[in-house]
C-alpha cells in the first residue's frame, strides 16, 4: 500500500467503492420500497405507530423495483450481500491505509471547524475556514452517512432473521422498531444524497477527483 503522502486525494479503492455503491444503493432503496408497498404501515398488527404520518400510503410506483413482493425480495437479498461486501472492503481499506484520519469525524478535532463551516454556509460568517481534503462539516456528513449505512445493515439483519439473530433484535428494540428504523435510515440517506449531489454540483472539482483520483501531491 502506497504511503499516505504520495497518494492521490481520492485513492482508487475509495473511488471504486464509491461508484459501486451508487447502483447498489439505488437497487436496495427501490426494491425496499416495493417490499414496503406490501404492507405500508409501521407498528405490529392492531397497534399502528401513531407517529408515522404515511400509514397506509404505498410508495409511488416509479420508486419501486421488482414488480411484486417476491421479485423485490429476490433483488433486495441478492444485492444486500454485495452492499455489505462493498462496505466491508471500504472500511477495511480506510482502517489499513490510514485514510480514516482525514475522513472520519473526530469530535475534538473537527467539531469547532464543522460549526464554523456551517456558519459560513448559513451566511453567518464571511469567510470559509481553510481546509485540506475535507472540512469538519464534510467529515461529519460523510461519517454520518457511514453510520446510517451501518444502521441500515443492522436493522436489515433483524428483518432478515429476527429469531436467529435474536440478540440483535432485542438490541434494536424488537422487530417492528427495527422495521421503522430501517425505513427511517432510508429517509435520512435520501436526504444526505440530495445534499451531497447539490454540493458536488456546486464544487465540480470534487466530482472530477472522485473520477480521476485528482493530482498526486508530487505531480
Amino acid at each position, binding site marked *: 500500500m502506497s504511503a499516505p503522502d504520495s497518494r492521490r486525494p481520492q485513492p482508487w479503492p475509495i473511488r471504486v467503492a464509491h461508484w459501486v455503491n451508487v447502483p447498489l444503493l439505488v437497487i436496495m432503496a427501490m426494491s425496499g420500497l416495493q417490499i414496503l408497498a406490501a404492507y405500508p404501515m409501521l407498528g405490529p398488527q392492531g397497534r399502528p405507530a401513531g407517529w408515522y404520518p404515511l400509514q397506509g400510503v404505498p410508495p409511488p410506483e416509479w420508486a419501486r423495483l*421488482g414488480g411484486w413482493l417476491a*421479485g423485490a425480495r429476490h433483488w433486495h*437479498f441478492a444485492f444486500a450481500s454485495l452492499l455489505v461486501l462493498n462496505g466491508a472492503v471500504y472500511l477495511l481499506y480506510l482502517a489499513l491505509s490510514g485514510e480514516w484520519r482525514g475522513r472520519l469525524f473526530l469530535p475534538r478535532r473537527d467539531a469547532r471547524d464543522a460549526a464554523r463551516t456551517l456558519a459560513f454556509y448559513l451566511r453567518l460568517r464571511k469567510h470559509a475556514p481553510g481546509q485540506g481534503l475535507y472540512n469538519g462539516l464534510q467529515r461529519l456528513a460523510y461519517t454520518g452517512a457511514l453510520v446510517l449505512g451501518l444502521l441500515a445493515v443492522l436493522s436489515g439483519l433483524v428483518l432478515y432473521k429476527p429469531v436467529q439473530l435474536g440478540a440483535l433484535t432485542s438490541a434494536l428494540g424488537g422487530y417492528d422498531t427495527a422495521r421503522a428504523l430501517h425505513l427511517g435510515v432510508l429517509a435520512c440517506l435520501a436526504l444526505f444524497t440530495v445534499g451531497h449531489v447539490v454540493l458536488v454540483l456546486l464544487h465540480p472539482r470534487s466530482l472530477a477527483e472522485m473520477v480521476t483520483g485528482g493530482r498526486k501531491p508530487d505531480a
Partner: protein
Amino acid sequence: MPSHVRVLQPRRLLRPTRRDLLLGGAALCLPACDSARPRAGFLGAMERFNARLEAALFDEDRLAPEPPSEELTPPGAYPQYFISETVPIAPASWTLRVGGLVTRPVLLTLEDLQRLPRSGYRLRHHCVEGWSAVASWHGVRVRDLAQAVGASPDARFVEFRSFDSGYWSSWDRPSALHAQTLLAYGMNGAPLPPEHGAPLRLYAAVKLGYKMVKYLTEVNFLPEPTGGYWEDQGYEWYAGV
C-alpha cells in the same frame, strides 16, 4: 377475502417492467436479473446462496423468546388468510394422514392428536409482507408426531398439505422438528377457529407465515422437497426467520 391477501397475488409474473430491465442493465447483469424468473440468472444464483446462508444461520436449539402477554394482538386484528373464496370448513369425517418414509403410517382424528403430548407457545408471527402479530398456540409438536410414527432419518423434508384449495408447503427437516414447531389445534387458549386454520394448522417460530400451512390434511416425511403454493410462484422456499 381480507385486504392483506391481495398483494401476494403473482401480478406481472411474466411481465418485468421496463424499469426493472433498465436497472438490471445498470447493475451490469442484464439479462440475468429478471424479477419474474428469479430462479434464473444472477438473482437465482444469489437465491441459492441465500438459502445456504439461511440454513447455516438456523440453530435448532435456539428458541424464539415468548413476547409478554400485553403484546398479544387484539382480537380481530390478527390477519386471516386462506386462498379459497370463503373460509374453508373441514368435513365432519376430517382426519390427518401421516405418511411418507415412516414405519407406522396413520390416519389421526383430532381426538387422537389431542392424546399426544401437548405443547404451547406464545410467539411473534413474521409475515413476508413485513407485519408482525402475536398469539399463543397449542397442539402437538411435529417432532413428537415424527417420533410417534417412526419417521426415517432419510426423510430430510416434510411436506404439509391442506384442504384450502390444495395449498401446501414443504420444509427442511430441522425447521419442521424445531422444538417450537407445532401442529396447532388451539389459539390463545381456545380451540383453533376456522378462520385461522381449524381443525389443525402448522405453526412455527422459525419460518415466515406462508410456510405455516393451515387446514391440514396430510403430513408426509419425504426424501426430497416438493415446493409449495407460493414457493412455486416465485417466493423463496427456505423462508426462515
